């Protein structure tokens, strides 16, 4: 597309950083540091939640317990993200996948260590917790 040059006024610049509360899912974030991935399970109705939910949307109970998830996932779908948002401009293109664990919950995370040409729907991958060199807490799918 041809860029249209029209007279304009630049708005004032602001920097936006939000402090996102994690106190009610703190065990999950702490667990990642120990290499564990936790889900929550409703004590009343038994529903399992990932991402972990501190309250139960199914029966509205507020009593949930932490359960550690297994790490074997079947990849249900994936995509290689080439055009990236501002806050991901400094890193190389990455692959995002959704995998289903044997407990039935699904996880959306990066898939690393596979060649894109070998990445297929239905393949198996291992879900692992990770602390990045910058200290960010995350999790990703990797080869077994």
């Amino acid at each position, binding site marked *: *597309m041809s*860029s*249209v*040059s*029209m007279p*304009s006024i630049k*708005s004032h610049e602001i920097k936006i950083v939000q402090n*996102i509360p994690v106190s009610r899912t703190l065990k999950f974030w702490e667990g990642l540091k120990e290499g564990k991935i936790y889900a929550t399970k409703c004590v009343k109705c038994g529903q399992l939640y*990932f*991402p972990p939910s501190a309250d139960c949307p199914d029966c509205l109970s507020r009593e949930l317990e932490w359960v550690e998830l297994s790490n074997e996932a079947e990849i*249900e*779908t*994936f*995509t*290689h*993200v*080439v*055009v*990236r*948002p*501002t*806050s*991901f*401009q400094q890193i190389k293109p*990455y692959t*995002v996948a*959704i995998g289903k664990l044997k407990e039935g*919950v*699904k*996880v*959306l*995370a*990066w898939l690393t260590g596979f060649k*894109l040409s070998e990445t*297929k*729907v*239905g393949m198996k991958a291992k879900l692992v917790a990770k602390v990045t060199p910058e200290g*960010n807490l*995350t*999790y990703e799918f990797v080869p077994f």
Partner: protein
Amino acid sequence: MRKAAIIGIGNSKFGVRSDVNIAELSFEAVRPSLEDAGLAAKDIEFAAVGSVGAGAWYEELLPAVVSAEYCGLTKAGLVRCEAACASGSAAFFTAYSAVASGQAEIAMALGIEKMREIDTPTSMEWIGRAGYYLWEFHNFGITFPAYYALYANAHMAKYGTTEEDLALVAVKNHKYGSMNPIAHLQNKITVDDVLASMMIASPLKLYDCCPMTDGSASVIVASEDKVKELKIDSPVWVAGMGYSSGTANLSKRPDFVGLTASVLASQRAYKAAGVTPSQIDFAEVHDCFTIAEIMAYEDIGLCSKGEGAELIREGQTEIGGKIPVNMDGGLKSKGHPIGTTGCSMMYELTKQLRQEAEKGRQVPLKNHIGLAHNVGGTGHYCYATILRR
């Protein structure tokens, strides 16, 4: 519930509209819609404004107020509706409900969006965050094309849909968009052009994606009494609306081959209108990405699940086929000013039902019924609207 009809429509030129600000852009839709209805701005009792990027991709935080002042609508009841890319339909639902409930005799739905005042990576950032920031964007940088690419790869794996099939959607929509004077992209393209375009999020390439567009659309809804009083000669009646929603986390969806919200919203609309998919003369579907149009065929019942690619391969969604879809060029070619799209779909349905569409893109009408399917986010919201002449 009482009957309500569309009596006035207006749509700005879609494109990179660096020549106007959000208020001036609104005027380009509001004025023609009032002229079309034979009304003055003061006749609008309630206005529902669909817009998403307030304060994010354009500078005004309260666009409904700013635009109402600029268009002479101040003192009308006013609200801004957000349902992501279905905000325009949410605004239309609000205006229609105001009239159908008896609260107002005349209401306006106004869709306004300015997406091109910021750079592309920042747009990708804002729109990528529109799902579940904490769980799907913060660590994983998912973008909107990537969300739909997840659906595309799953659909391709399960039903054998190909990248060529996806490309056919873009080719069709550019063909009809080239005949639509308000369309953002008016160039005809080939399957090879699509396949050769740059990768955005595999398997979706640049020409599988709708452009980021500035544009506005205005729709005026009136009660049956007002239609008679104003002697409107071509009212287009709201036959039925349906709505639904889907989980914020994509990981909580049952599968990635269709949108449950689309299925539920369209079923509800068919039931409300008392019609079946086979009675619809033509449809506007939410083709923000080529895969979205193929899934829409299946989800709204134009074909069975998994048969969407066949419909496009056979040319069944062109004029002369089983059911023409997106004869205005769709989001893909006409453009997708996020909060405007739902109102622009009403503009197009009304134009087609009045047989006022440009040469080459006017659909043949048998039952005089059209459907609009408007998805917000990746099936996070969905509205389906059936209009009848």
